[in-house]
């Protein structure tokens, strides 16, 4: 699997997801600088967590207009898988690859804890390693994870099997329908607030995130 992690000024989970990809998939991803305008031939693009451009204006808003995003959007149109984690999810809604928006958490505070997630659609390169309805545990760590979407879009998301994850029991941010992650219509683009890269080995206290990277490697190699 040829993967790339896009690095924005203020990204701070870029190393963590690169480590996870290399550890599980056996090949280090490329690191692509936000000012670049082209991408090499790829199977997976990761938009990492962090505070791109300081989260100024809105979380993900400036990154969504960075020079590299044009290439990311073009690649997504060709079916290259795109994974947006946390700040990366915010970028995906800001640039229009995913519907909806991520507002300030309902409690108005940053929240960092491990939560249960019910897996939704499993017919994707990201989630095929789980059973539908399976509850896994992943850490969240964000201030703006309150996913909102128009009612008709919500109906479409649910009808088209585009809900990837819902918070199970403990919704840390007040998101609509307990949504933690959503797909594009082709299920080639996934945005999620939880951090799978922080739960891939015993040192993390949980390994539920590893299945996502394993499945991606299997599907895209």
């Amino acid at each position, binding site marked *: 699997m040829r993967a790339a992690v896009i690095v924005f*000024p*203020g990204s*701070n*989970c870029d*190393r*963590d997801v690169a*480590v*996870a990809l290399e550890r599980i998939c056996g090949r280090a991803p490329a690191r692509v600088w936000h000012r670049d305008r082209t991408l090499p031939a790829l199977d997976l693009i990761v938009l990492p*967590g*962090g*505070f791109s*451009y*300081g*989260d*100024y204006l809105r979380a993900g808003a400036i990154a969504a207009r960075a020079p590299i995003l044009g290439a990311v959007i073009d690649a997504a149109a060709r079916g290259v898988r795109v994974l947006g984690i946390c700040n990366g999810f915010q970028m995906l809604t800001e640039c229009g690859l995913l519907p909806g928006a991520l507002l300030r958490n309902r409690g108005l*505070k*940053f*929240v*960092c*804890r491990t939560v249960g997630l019910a897996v939704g659609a499993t017919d994707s390169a990201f989630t095929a390693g789980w059973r539908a309805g399976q509850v896994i545990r992943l*850490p969240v*760590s964000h*201030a703006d994870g309150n996913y909102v979407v128009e009612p008709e879009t919500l109906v479409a998301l649910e009808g088209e099997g585009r809900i990837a994850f819902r918070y199970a029991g403990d919704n840390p941010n007040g998101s609509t329908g307990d949504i933690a992650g959503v797909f594009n219509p082709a299920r080639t683009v996934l945005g999620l607030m939880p*951090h799978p*890269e*922080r739960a*891939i080995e*015993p*040192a*993390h*206290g949980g390994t539920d995130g590893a299945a996502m990277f394993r499945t991606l490697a299997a599907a895209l190699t």
Partner: protein
Amino acid sequence: MTGDRTGQGTAAMTRTKPAEDPTVTAALVAEHGLAADEAVRLDAMLGRTASWTELGIVSAMWSEHCSYKSSKRWLKTLPTTAPWVICGPGENAGVIDLGDGLAAVFKMESHNHPSFIEPYQGAATGVGGILRDVFTMGARPVANLNFLRFGRPEHPKTRHLVAGVVAGIGGYGNCVGVPTVGGATGFDPAYDGNILVNAMTVGVADANRIFYSAAAGVGNPVVYVGARTGRDGIHGATMASAEFSEDAEAKRPTVQVGDPFTEKLLIEACLELMATDAIVAIQDMGAAGLTSSAVEMAGKGGLGIELDLDLVPTREPGMTAYELMLSESQERMLMVLAPDRAPTARAIFEKWGLAVAEIGRLTDTGRLIVRRGGAVKADLELAPLVNEAPLYDRPWVRPPPPAPLDPGHADRPLADPAAALSRLLADPDLASKRWIWEQYDSQVGADTVIGPGGADAAVVRLHGTQRALAMTTDCTPRYCAADPETGGRQAVAEAWRNLCAVGARPLAVTDNLNFGNPEKPEIMGQLVGCIQGMAEACRALDLPVVSGNVSLYNETDGRAILPTPTIGAVGLIDDWALATGLALTRADATVLLVGGTGPGHLGQSLYLRVFGGLTAGPPPPVDLAAERRAGELIRTLIAARHISACHDLSDGGLLVALAEMALAGDLGVTLALPASDLTAGRLFGEDQGRYLVETAAPDAVLAAAAAAGVPARPLGRTGGTALTIGDAARVPLADLRALHEGWLPAWIKAT
């Protein structure tokens, strides 16, 4: 000056030309905080009257903050060396050797006063400042910790201060991508007017690539990098700014404003430049900004330095030499580069969108010369600024020893220990601080093995290795107030114990000495006593002090804070998988008490405060030899995998520690205690040097303890969903959890 980041603020302007410098008068000298004898010394040093800019520079360098003039005599008595110490006090941070080519770089620093005035920015910039102290030395910051003290919860300001400080620590630390993995928070009326915000950063560096601040190389360029300079934080709170204002413009507030985004870029840019051979010396611009960085770098190198302030990147025009030299704008660094390496630095800093400017060069004159608009605004000999700052041997008195506590308190049988425990677990000092630490990203970096609430110390893996650092912050101020020497000893011993409890080998400490006005002999006595106790404990436990910070004058209306010598300690674990948490892990295991088996020391205990309304008696004595034996035994037991959970006994004593272990593991315990043990002293006494351990091999633990000469005895077994105490009491964990976790969120919400 180029490479400015798009969008960097340009403040609205009300003044475009620098104001005329005021004439320096005796009154102005006094307003700068110089004592009469210091003013005489200044005149003698110059042989003339100081200029306005010179007065600002000298008063900053001779301030308590920069010169440690009240504490230095006593700080020198702390042990600072060990074979594993690479760099002790005097640099931006301490450095210790971790083996395998790695070094840990760490320090703790206070931001008490700014955090009281403006809690969010005060705490945020406190985190930013300590981060810079660490990455200045070539280390990537891998963990943040803190130690917070607030006034009583009923005080009208406390809620606002807690919420703001916590948000500020999180707002900065979360954005820069350094996990906040540990801390301690407590309340006492003595902090009503002076809260404590002590922030600690631990970084990891290549042991052979540590960067220092001593300048070298006459003619080498002096380069400014980072954020632009504005009028924020000029001269801290010591200035009566209105009297110095030449026009109607109000000065910026004296609390600096932090930008963690710029700090993140600065970390990455500095570490990238440090991987080249461009940097000769580097220092962050912290307190007293450009003044202290320039003076200390050139002074330590025994050289001179010339600065052309017209070249300093600024946020607003019209700044005077005085303002430029004393601004405490955040996220700035000063570097001396090797000849012809300025282009390398420029390319890297421009890539990261940061300001970079060559603002001067090193000379062989031993003088600091500052120019603005072509005119020399300051011309000072450096040596007296650095080496001849006034030092005081302030008078001090040892406080009278506290009267012994009536033994009746400790021996009193408890009819309902569960009720007492329930009340203690909801006490503000003992209640869970989950509401606080869930606002911190404790996992970024993906190397956090044990984060907040998981153990007595946080454990962070050394990236890409099997080894891990353990770290903790600790101090028990009420012990220090009752008996400074014992309190100083206890703060070090408890930090040492916290590291042992996770299985780490303690290596070194940093300290943050928070006290009242040292000009009062009784306050000075607290400082001296605490340092004496710390020094004794550090020697006995082989814990060199490698860095530190002193915060004095923490007083309001003549009322001082409790003496608070915060200790930050760092240790090493050879295998992160051995790191032991405090949560109970398995049913049908044995819980043992390891260490001291005294009758139960209730003096200065939280039990006595909560149930007796008393802060009385001596604090628990600290037997450093016994402490060492117990700690080493615990580490041996953890390395042998004989114990599966461990927690040291501190505030609240035995039952509180046991409840914390049970709650963390969501697993009950049945204690088989004889009725004679159901006393306040036995259950809630705060005797030192003790640990609770969970083991599936009690015989092995008891044998090892006997061989090590450490008392140990089984107390009960794990299992079920309640805490059962002999025949006397049974309380469901769910009830205890509701009390323990409930207090802080409920208090924050109450209006």
